[in-house]
């Protein structure tokens, strides 16, 4: 049952003041999709935030039960549509674990490159829209300009720019384009100065710091209690990254750091820290891509793709580090070609739950600053 909030009328000094309920969304420029936030306001101060979700529910998990295992992949794309490669990665890792397929080395390397490029693209959208939420429009367009280069790399690889259907169980739909390695190296060269530019324009801007530092502080114990993951958890100062703590694919071979929030501009775990962790993570992703490009072996990307997937009766849970946090797949097999159940643990959904804790006592304008730093994708929250 949904809790019904009564308008409370309080009297002080003979003046009756009334708490106001403001529905932010689902048609609102800054709710990053179709989220509705029910704000209980006293003046401009937030007393309570209730997120209402479900406007983008598409029954993905039920759909998956009517599909064969490879047919689920395109559906997975549509969850976190800003990080489709990551979604596919998690799903194929889970199914390969269930069926016990060993994929060729080249496939692993390409998957890592794609996932890390996708992480940069996704973080660029997160940082750009965050700037736009705070009121700076130009960094938003700069970020999208750089993201376009990554989308171009995806496009020459598999023909799609947003929903790729690229990683298949046991392999990939296409091998790399002959130009891919060269273009990726060029992109890395091009992108490093752009991060500096972003830092000059937005990260270290006085007004931006005023708006985000000490806003929406998430203490590390609260974060862990809510099951928060990804840049949000790291922003609170806890060094937790599935790529390092529970390595999947070939992530144990690469050398990279895990940036955590340090409270440089305010308190550890504020919105600025969450933002800055994403900026630093882009650099780490670049490092991983550079190493992967150096080491990538030759091979056939489609040799391990099975003709028909019929896993034994059983269940599997696999998790990966998506740009937004821990993405988990729990798949139950009843021995047929269709999965019996596909349950997703979406990072955005779990991270969104902490909104009320973060927003209480802040102002209406801060809700935007906090929601932007949580960085949700409604396609994944609702599935």
């Amino acid at each position, binding site marked *: 049952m949904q809790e019904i909030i009564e308008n409370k009328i309080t009297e002080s000094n003979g003046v009756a003041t009334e708490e106001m309920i403001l529905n932010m969304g689902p048609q609102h420029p800054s709710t990053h999709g179709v989220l509705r936030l029910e704000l209980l306001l006293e003046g401009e101060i937030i007393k309570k935030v209730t997120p209402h979700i479900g406007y983008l529910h598409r029954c993905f998990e039920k759909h998956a039960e009517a599909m064969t295992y490879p047919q689920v992949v395109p559906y997975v794309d549509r969850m976190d549509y800003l990080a489709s490669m990551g979604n596919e990665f998690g799903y194929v890792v889970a199914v390969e674990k269930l069926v016990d397929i060993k994929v060729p080395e080249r496939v692993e390397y390409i998957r890592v490159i794609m996932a890390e490029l996708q992480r940069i693209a996704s973080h660029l959208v997160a940082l750009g829209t965050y700037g736009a939420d705070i*009121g700076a429009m130009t960094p938003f*367009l700069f970020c999208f300009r750089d993201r376009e280069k990554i989308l171009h790399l995806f496009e020459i690889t598999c023909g799609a720019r947003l929903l790729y259907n690229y990683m298949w169980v046991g392999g990939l739909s296409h091998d790399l384009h002959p130009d891919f390695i060269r273009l990726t190296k060029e992109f890395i060269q091009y992108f490093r100065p752009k991060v500096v530019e972003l830092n000059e324009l937005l990260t270290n801007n006085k007004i931006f710091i005023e708006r985000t530092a000490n806003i929406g502080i998430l203490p590390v114990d609260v974060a862990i209690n809510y099951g928060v993951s990804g840049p949000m958890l790291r922003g609170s100062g806890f060094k937790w990254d599935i790529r390092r703590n529970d390595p999947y694919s070939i992530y144990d071979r690469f050398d990279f750091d895990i940036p955590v929030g340090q409270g440089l501009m305010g308190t550890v775990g504020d919105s600025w820290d969450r933002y800055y962790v994403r900026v630093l993570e882009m650099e780490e992703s670049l490092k991983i891509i550079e190493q992967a490009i150096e080491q990538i072996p030759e091979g056939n990307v489609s040799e391990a793709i099975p003709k028909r997937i019929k896993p034994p009766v059983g269940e599997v849970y696999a998790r990966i580090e998506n740009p937004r946090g821990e993405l988990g797949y729990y798949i139950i097999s009843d021995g047929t070609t269709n999965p019996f159940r596909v349950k997703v643990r979406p990072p955005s959904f779990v991270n969104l739950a902490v909104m009320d804790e973060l927003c209480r006592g802040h*102002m209406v304008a801060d809700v935007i600053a906090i929601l932007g730093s949580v960085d949700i994708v409604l396609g994944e929250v609702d599935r």
Partner: protein
Amino acid sequence: MIYDFLFELTGSEFLAGLIQSLLPLFLFILPFALFAVWWERKISAHMQDRLGPMRVGWHGWLQTIADILKLLQKEDIVPRDVDKPLFNLAPVLVFMGSYAVFAAIPFSGAFIGSNIDLGLFYIVAVSGIVVASILMAGWASNNKYSLLGAMRSAAQIISYEIPTMIVVVTIVMITGTLNLYTLSEMQTGYFWNWMIFGGPGFGVDKFLFIPLMIIAFFILYISTLAEVNRTPFDIPEAESELVAGYHTEYSGMKFAMFFLAEYANMFAVSAIVSAVFFGGYQSPFGYLGNTLGIEWLIPIEQFFWFTAKGLFFIFVQMWLRWTLPRLRVDQLMALCWKYLIPISFVNLLIVGLITVL
């Protein structure tokens, strides 16, 4: 003066005055607002690695005209639960407020809508109408976002009028006039006669005034930015928070009125800044008309300089808008009450002391 010419032409004081007061509206404000909208879109586009409007006319210069035509044709939607008279009156008033400001602004030595002695005071007073109409729009819309936007806007504009007024008083202390025409005429000659460089004359006080005037200029410019709701002070219409603020419920031509008023206002405040500190319509280095001995060239040159200065300050406004994020409403108030007002008061005191001595 244009008034004398019109008086001879029509033979009626009333007609001459009417035409003269309507001239800036049709000759300047409306075309300028159309131009400024296009200009802003081009500037923002080039700052963001885009092209902006390119299809309608050369580099899209007809785009705003096309937009206005579209807005004129749109259905005039009045939501059911609004306060109708106020809802309809607000856009007219907001446009009136920003237009009335132009009456006291000298466009050139030969043309000023109304040469009143209380020019500066009149401008500050008339822009108060804008607050009333914004509040009216927000209240009448019967929309929570509009109401929040209007409340913020009223608080912001009223607060920032205080440092504006103090700076104006500072100037009045030095020049002894509130008349913008006289003020501009005082700063004639070369650019070192401008108020920002201590005003006319070559006493010791001129050099003492320079740093104080620079501080005063920055305070005035920041507060005018806040008064016209431009970034970083565009909180009333903060798109990402309050949808469109006080004009959320407006559509069609009524929306266009708010929009045009905003751009007209931008020019008005830029004109005030340039008239007070940068010599108004005065050329920084003599007139070609004087050198060549062609007298009718001088007002045209003056108009050119006036527009150029105005456009420069508008360019800076746009530049700031597309670079900076937005302050929060309490931070905005803190900036005004904790920094601008005390600094401008101290500035006023020092200027007063120097003037007395």
